[in-house]
């Protein structure tokens, strides 16, 4: 499944597979960040080195970090370096500054409709026949 030559020992097979997973994970994260050219590659190399990946794998084994180690190293590096244009390090203002006001409902006849209807009828009758009633 790994595509490695048959004559390499099993331990090395596993280590190379782990290396590939870690490398791909770090590169995928950096691709997702969409950093300026080469900055992502530099960061990938730096983070993998920082977590103990060996440059001469044939000599003493691959020295491959796990994905967790590699990503932790990358997160630490991003925290330290804070590449320009990277979101997430500051709050983005998506709204203007508040200029608060109040908006309160004006009085409305908030009574059940039957009561409202009766009151409205009385008011209407009063307004319509007020003069006659006064007499």
């Amino acid at each position, binding site marked *: 499944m790994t595509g490695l030559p048959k004559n390499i020992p099993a331990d090395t097979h596993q280590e190379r597979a782990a290396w590939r997973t870690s490398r791909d994970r770090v590169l*995928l994260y950096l691709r997702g960040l969409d950093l300026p050219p080469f900055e992502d590659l530099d960061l990938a190399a730096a983070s993998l080195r920082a977590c103990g990946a060996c440059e001469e794998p044939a000599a003493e084994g691959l020295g491959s970090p796990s994905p967790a180690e590699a990503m932790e190293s990358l*997160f630490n590096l991003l925290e330290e370096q804070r590449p320009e244009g990277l979101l997430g390090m500051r709050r983005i203002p998506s709204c203007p500054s508040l200029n608060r*006001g109040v908006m309160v409902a004006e009085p409305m006849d*908030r009574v059940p409709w039957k009561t409202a209807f009766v009151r409205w009828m009385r008011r209407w009758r009063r307004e319509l026949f007020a003069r006659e009633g006064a007499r």
Partner: protein
Amino acid sequence: MTAFELDWSRSAGRRRLLLIFLVLAPTFIACGTMASILPSRGGSPLEIVLLAVFAVLFAWISVGFWTALMGFFLLLQRRNRYSVSNVCEGLGFSIENPHARTAVLIPIYNEDVKRVFAGLKTVYDSLAATGSLDRFDFFVLSDTTDPDVWVQEEEGWHRFCTEQDAFGRVFYRKRRSNAKRKSGNVADFCRRWGKNYRYMIVFDADSIMAGRTMVRMVQMMEARPDIGILQTPPAGVNRETLLARAQQFANRVYGPMFAAGLHFWQLGDAQYWGHNAIIRVEPFIRHCELPRLPGKGPLGGDILSHDFVESALMRRAGYGVWLAYDLDGSYEETPPTLLDELKRDRRWCQGNLQHLRLIFSRGFFPAHRALFLNGILSYGSALLWLAFLLISSAQAVAEVYLEPVYFLDTKTLFPQWPVWRPHWALALLGSTAVLLFLPKFFSYALALLRDPAARLYGGRLRLACGILLEVALSTLLAPVRMLHHSVFILSTILGKNVGWPTQSRDDRGTPWADAVDVHWWGTILGILWGALVYLTNPSFFWWISPIILSLVLSIPLSVLTSRASLGKAFRRAGFFTTPEETEPPLELRELAKTLQEEAPYSPLPLSPRQGFLRAVTDPCVHALHTSLLLRYKKGAPAREEARQALVEKALRSGPDSLSSKEKMTLLNDPFHLAELHRRVWELEDDKQAARWGLSQPSVD
């Protein structure tokens, strides 16, 4: 009150008296004719109920007829002295006063994000072309409850602002609690930033307006400080299903005449339709906050149809509400299918019935009380039609089984013979048909008077055929709508509350299973009703056969009218063509172009619709989301523990194990989301990582 206000209010009073007379006089005559047709001349209790229902219905359709006729004559005139657009004569497309700032509000609720920002881009570019963009700010006001859609909205906003360099002009605000729904969303804007603006233009999620139209609206408000709300009549566009295309066509052909007619008798007492309108912010803040209606149940609580009430409150505060019937460049999209339309109507029905609670409130103008009544009758008429048809059927069945009464209680020399006068019945049916269909002929005449070749409608013949087809289609669908509206009213009265379902705004069509689920009982009712009437009184069956046929065919009708393929076939044949299809305005062309654009590049194998996954996994989306969250304070230990448990659950069982509510909880918490993000990227197990879109599971 200024001389002009006095002038228009007197004219409006006279016009409304004329309308009342024109409605009531024929109604009395029609009721007399109806009574004479009935076997007991309207003497039996059943016939009295029948006559009362008939009177209300006849008056109701008469209002529509006379409104259309008034609109017809108004549009024939070269100049209308009450038209609000008169104040723009000789003006360019600039807004001189730098203080006349306008906020364009786009309230959204689980909408198609791509469409929302494509619409925003269209309006933004159109305004930029007028040179007055600096007088406008845009607010996307989200009430979204779907975690995936929320993240998409943030991405959409950020991308738009980056591409258009619109930071500081286009804003995005997400409300945590969507109290009072759309009206609460707009009120929340007013409380936070309303003081910064003199006007606000309220959109729906699918609204499009031309920049020139928006500038004109501001100019009108500037010239007429007595106006509180100015409504434009939006034209229906962009739909492909058969039903929606027929509605777009009807809206475009008949709409201008009805809008002019409404303007004729409403003048400054017009309605606000909730979108595509400009509002003076200061009086809106002071007078138009909606109260909660007391009591529980569907007629209590938040006011659902807020727009009618807001216009009545604005008018009560002394500001005019006008309809700019002659202003074009305002567009909206209609529901694509019958089921979507009914879903919307369910909400509107409850909202309109709530107005029963407000109709007698102190201080409202009589015109707005009438408009409340009008809204109630929009749905109440369905129940009355159903009652009318059922009582008529009951009368027809009873006629067969009951012995006629030849000698009444009073002593007479001659027996009372039951007399059937078919020509009177036909005359009554004819007059009802005239009221319903003559306005369509007026619209045809109006279209030909403006352009004798009717080129924008595909030619004279196609326009005429389109009208006939639209009449046939709306006649077929009317009984189905009637039945459902009746059920909506009854269920509202019985206390069944309506939720806030998301509106479908695409042309996917109705599956057969969904149609059966909604219409099966209507079909059975139609079959039983038809069979009963046919077996007892076959001659009456033919009078109600159109109703029965429609109910029996409601399932295929619902499915077929929802098909975009059928709509496109009609389009190819040149039917239901609208001017916006023949010569698409620049804004609609731009919208179509923007919608064709591909989704931006992402290295992760996640669809743009997987918003939650992207917020957790995609570093850029995650960073954007956490950056947009308002200042977050850690909560009580118990709450923090519950959230930590959610993180562990997500890592253990994958994103699909989380409910929508749990996803929202995590999205609202930047600390736990950041932890989840970090730990997902540190996952050792390939299969677990693959659930979050990090790698493919290896094949053993």
